[in-house]
């Protein structure tokens, strides 16, 4: 019995060869966001939450699409995803060989949202992503580390793909917040605030040259500025070859 019991997980491992994707707890607390929210200058309090230790991978998303065929690329309404949705897969239920551990990309916000809901979770808010991403392997807020800034600024460029979760986890046990792919936040559509269209200066500050200074509380955090500039351009049905996601949920 003992021998059989130990064989079962090993067989699972061999057949799927997918690394575990656990939720890890993050304590939250007072946090200085690189984005300005209203008048608070970026000072916020993040509630405690749990976050997937790795981005959702191709194998995991394949299982989701098998279980919920309405999210297959050949069945999804165009309202919920553009034509690029899972277009890199060989067939509607067949990712390319050798990519099962890659982070899934070319998924719309709607599909990412549905995946997390189906797993009893949700997409993380931008602040939850940013809170987790501020940490490195040794400290909870490593954003003033000049070497780290340099490193993460050039990550995420073409050719950065590799298996998700290969890199060192940060102090919370979260992998790959930088470098592999951009990730959908739950609240991407409200990140740029200012729905008042009477003043073009505030309507979409990121679209203009000088505008970038308006929305960011830390003008030197270019890794975040670059990321937000991209996220703010997305609509919920957009898919990109370098955009994936991970899920979050409340603390137990």
């Amino acid at each position: 019995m003992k021998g059989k019991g130990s064989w079962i997980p090993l067989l699972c491992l061999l057949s799927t060869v997918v690394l575990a994707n656990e939720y890890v707890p993050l304590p939250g607390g007072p946090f200085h966001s690189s984005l300005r929210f209203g008048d608070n200058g970026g000072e916020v309090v993040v509630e405690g939450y749990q976050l997937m230790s790795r981005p959702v991978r191709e194998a995991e998303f394949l299982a989701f699409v098998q279980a919920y065929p309405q999210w297959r690329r050949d069945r999804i309404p165009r309202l919920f995803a553009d034509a690029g949705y899972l277009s890199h897969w060989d067939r509607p239920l067949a990712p390319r060989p050798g990519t099962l551990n890659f982070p899934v990309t070319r998924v719309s916000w709607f599909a990412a949202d549905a995946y997390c809901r189906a797993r009893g979770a949700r997409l993380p808010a931008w602040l939850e992503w940013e809170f987790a991403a501020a940490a490195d392997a040794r400290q909870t807020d490593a954003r003033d580390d000049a070497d780290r800034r340099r490193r993460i600024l050039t990550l995420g460029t073409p050719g950065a793909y590799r298996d998700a979760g290969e890199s060192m986890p940060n102090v919370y046990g979260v992998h790959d917040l930088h470098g592999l792919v951009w990730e959908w936040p739950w609240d991407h559509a409200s990140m740029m605030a200012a729905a008042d269209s009477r003043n073009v200066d505030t309507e979409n500050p990121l679209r203009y040259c000088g505008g970038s200074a308006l929305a960011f509380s830390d003008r030197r955090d270019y890794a975040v500025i670059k990321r937000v500039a991209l996220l703010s351009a997305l609509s919920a049905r957009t898919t990109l070859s370098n955009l994936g996601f991970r899920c979050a949920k409340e603390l137990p």
Partner: protein
Amino acid sequence: MKSGVTSHTVLKQLAGGIALALLLSGCTTGKTASEAPLPVEQAQLTAPPVVPPPISRKGPAKVVVDLEMVEQEMRLSDGVTYEFWTFGGTVPGSFIRIREGDTVEFNLKNRHDSHVAHNIDLHAVTGTGGGAEATFTLPGHKTQFTFKALNPGLYVYHCAMAPVGMHIANGMYGLILVEPEEGLPPVDREYYVMQGDFYTEGDHGEPGLQPFSLEKAVDEHPTYVVFNGSEGALTGDGALTANAGDKVRLFVGNGGPNLVSSFHVIGEIFDRVFYEGGSKYQENVQTTLIPAGGATMVEFTTDVPGNFILVDHSIFRTFNKGALGILSVDGEMKPEIYTGQQFSGEYPEAEGGR
């Protein structure tokens, strides 16, 4: 006499009638012209240092521009590469040539393997953001807007996506020429040259793929200052060429992002400088300032053969950071203009010298 008066009156009436008819037909013609669809043509874009041919049209057209934004690793110097962000796959980006009064349909694509969104702000555009607000373009997406070229001149275009300095520092700029209605005077050679400053983590010459240095960019301490996107782009096989006696026009831009260029060609005097890319020219100029995000047109005749060196006369940039190009001129020596060396030797020290 009476008949004469009568005939005069008739003539006057006739003339009036003809004038009226002309006026009416003029009106009709004008109306037809404005309603007639503009001829449509595809803009011919060129990679530096090549410039598209002059526009021979005598009237406005609808010009379609298709430009793709590409992020790719390219040579910055010998043994040094950089992840450039480009308009059309080159630094500077593709040269666009249109005519005053043209209506331009601008189609912008961001290649699928780009990792960030881009847009374009053309200084030749009259309208919000110079087109930037209309061209927020995700990887794998395309956007379109249309503008009318109201003002002739030589203009810079660049990406204005946040963080804008990084997009420009990575090479996202180029030139668009709006020819005046009457065209530019014919010349024998036209070239496209654009200066840019680059900021790398490694020192000048440190080999390998060099990442962008935000600190150096913010401090305005470039590692490289180059013409046409890399050290040596305009030397050796890349040198510009002309024959002695040619009339040469250089379209020179400065993408920045930070430095102002003191543009000078060693051994030449600019006959005309259309300073700041505008409509007026100064004559007989040695060195001309080109602001970051600005351009200039210079014209000169290559009277004698030789290698004429394009520099930023803030001269450490030339000798230490790469701002050097060559215009190689072939032809017969003209000793009445320039002899070359006539003597070299010692001379006796003056009596009582130290």
